[in-house]
């Protein structure tokens, strides 16, 4: 009797010990993976306050000189402004088209939903340089302004994400509400405008922000489609880095990182990032 109790007690302790060991191993592994994910970003932020021009680490001292250099550089400032403008235009375009598509998928394709959804996801499966080169060649054939090509390219790469994000928001809308409005005589367009849009407003807003983020960070579309007077920030940085690499890049990218993290937190508050990341 007593021996039995003892053995069950010690096996209980053994199980507990092995659980603690497992948790420690898991904790160390996960921490190491996070360190790998976040170190390059932390290094950028730290080296943006460096005093010397080389990319040395740890820094020799603290200064804001690289931020001043960024603010005094007309080409980087112009690129930043252009990227922000392009991001807003592309985000509005991709959200409007994405909303119409998502609403159509939810209410009008019935059992073909999966098929329609995967067609909308097409641009994720195609390499972005292929999209970009093809648009460039299209511009040599059709009389379309280059700027329009760049905007359309950005709308294309944002669409899979806006469609998926808005679909997730629309899933939470009760179709009875629309049916009620229809019975009361509202037109389809009016239902869309006065019933559906207000209900998914947070989803639409986070889709706008998310599309802005994708457009702002894009290199591959702009690699072939940006030209004089329409250089995006990533392309400006890319061409600068091919010749030299000073902490001014660190200062610019730190500004960008802070902006993106802030926007990401807004999405997290509105609908949760997980919802919008679901592809």
């Amino acid at each position, binding site marked *: 009797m007593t021996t039995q109790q003892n053995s069950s007690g010690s096996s209980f302790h053994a199980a507990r010990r092995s659980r603690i060991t497992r948790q420690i191993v898991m904790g160390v*592994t996960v921490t190491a993976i996070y360190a790998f*994910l976040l170190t*390059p970003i932390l290094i950028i932020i730290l080296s943006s306050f460096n005093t010397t021009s080389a990319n040395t680490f740890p820094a020799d001292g603290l200064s804001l000189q690289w931020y001043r250099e960024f603010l005094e550089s007309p080409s980087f400032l112009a690129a930043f402004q252009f990227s922000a403008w392009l991001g807003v235009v592309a985000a509005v375009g991709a959200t409007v*088209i*994405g909303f119409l598509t998502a609403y159509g998928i939810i209410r009008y394709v019935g059992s073909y939903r999966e098929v329609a959804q995967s067609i909308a996801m097409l641009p994720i499966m195609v390499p972005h340089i292929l999209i970009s080169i093809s648009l460039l*060649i299209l511009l040599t*054939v059709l009389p379309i302004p280059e700027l329009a090509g760049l905007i359309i390219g950005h709308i294309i790469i944002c669409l899979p994400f806006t469609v998926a994000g808005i679909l997730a928001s629309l899933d939470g809308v009760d179709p009875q509400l629309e049916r009620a409005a229809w019975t009361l005589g509202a037109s389809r367009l009016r239902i869309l405008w006065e019933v559906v849009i207000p209900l998914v407003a947070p989803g639409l807003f986070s889709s706008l922000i998310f599309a802005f983020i994708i457009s702002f960070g894009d290199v591959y579309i702009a690699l072939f489609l940006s030209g004089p007077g329409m250089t995006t920030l*990533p392309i400006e940085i890319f061409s600068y880095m091919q010749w030299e690499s000073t902490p001014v890049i*660190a200062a610019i990218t730190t500004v960008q990182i802070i902006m*993106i993290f802030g926007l990401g937190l807004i999405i997290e508050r509105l609908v949760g990032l997980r919802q919008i990341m679901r592809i």
Partner: protein
Amino acid sequence: MNTSGRLFSTFLFSPIGIVYLLFLLAPIGFFLSMSLFRYDAFELYVPALTTENFERVLTDGYYQEIIFRTLKIAFLTSLFSLLLGYPLAYFLARSRTQWRGILMFLVIAPLMSGIIVRTYGWIVLLGSDGAVNKTLISIGLIDQPVQILNTETAVLLALVHILMPYMVFPLFSSLASQDPDVERAAGTLGAGRIRTFLEVTLPLSRTGILMGSALVFTLSAGSVVTPALLGGKDVQMLGQQIYDLVLTTLNWPLASAVAFVLVLCQFSIIALYFRGGRHGPA
């Protein structure tokens, strides 16, 4: 009502239809069919059918080496992303910590900061004056800075870092959607932790593994900017060849043939992954 409904759904779908047909599918079709055109120094391309572009890409040793390297780097990137992404996805899917929201955010946020930002981070880390070399010297492992930049290792490290989140999301959703009772049942029936993982959890997350691997493989095979900045002259990948041929050499038919080979590699790997997924057990 039925006609107006059809009219309305046409209204809903025509914007994306026009954008995808006119600006995605048609131009890609046109560009890829250019691989059968003859190159001309003055007119760029002449629509006369020829297979010379493909012959050059497939027989030229220079391109063979680059195709092989691209496939190798893409394969290793998806392998290492899986090895690092799986524990992370498993932890995020199973842990009940209150920090889970923030921990998810910390996986997504680097992804959103863009390719250029993260590639630059690795330039700072891996340079001869960078943190990695300084750390290795200070702990006495080496006395001279080692060359990491402009090697395949640098490209691989950065690509794994940049693309790993794409592995974590599909893994996370397939792990999070598993019924925890299945694992518990295996435990009750006497399977140990490791056996439960190998015979229950791992096979059930196959979809996530395949989707994530296919996605990371495709994205890394098509990369241009990261190998250009971290690999230098010696680590050329297919994407850079296409870039040079389109913008510098202006040989669009050859660029198209190279792009065709790249797309073919990507799609055959995806097909392979999904065939493997269907024929395996479970």
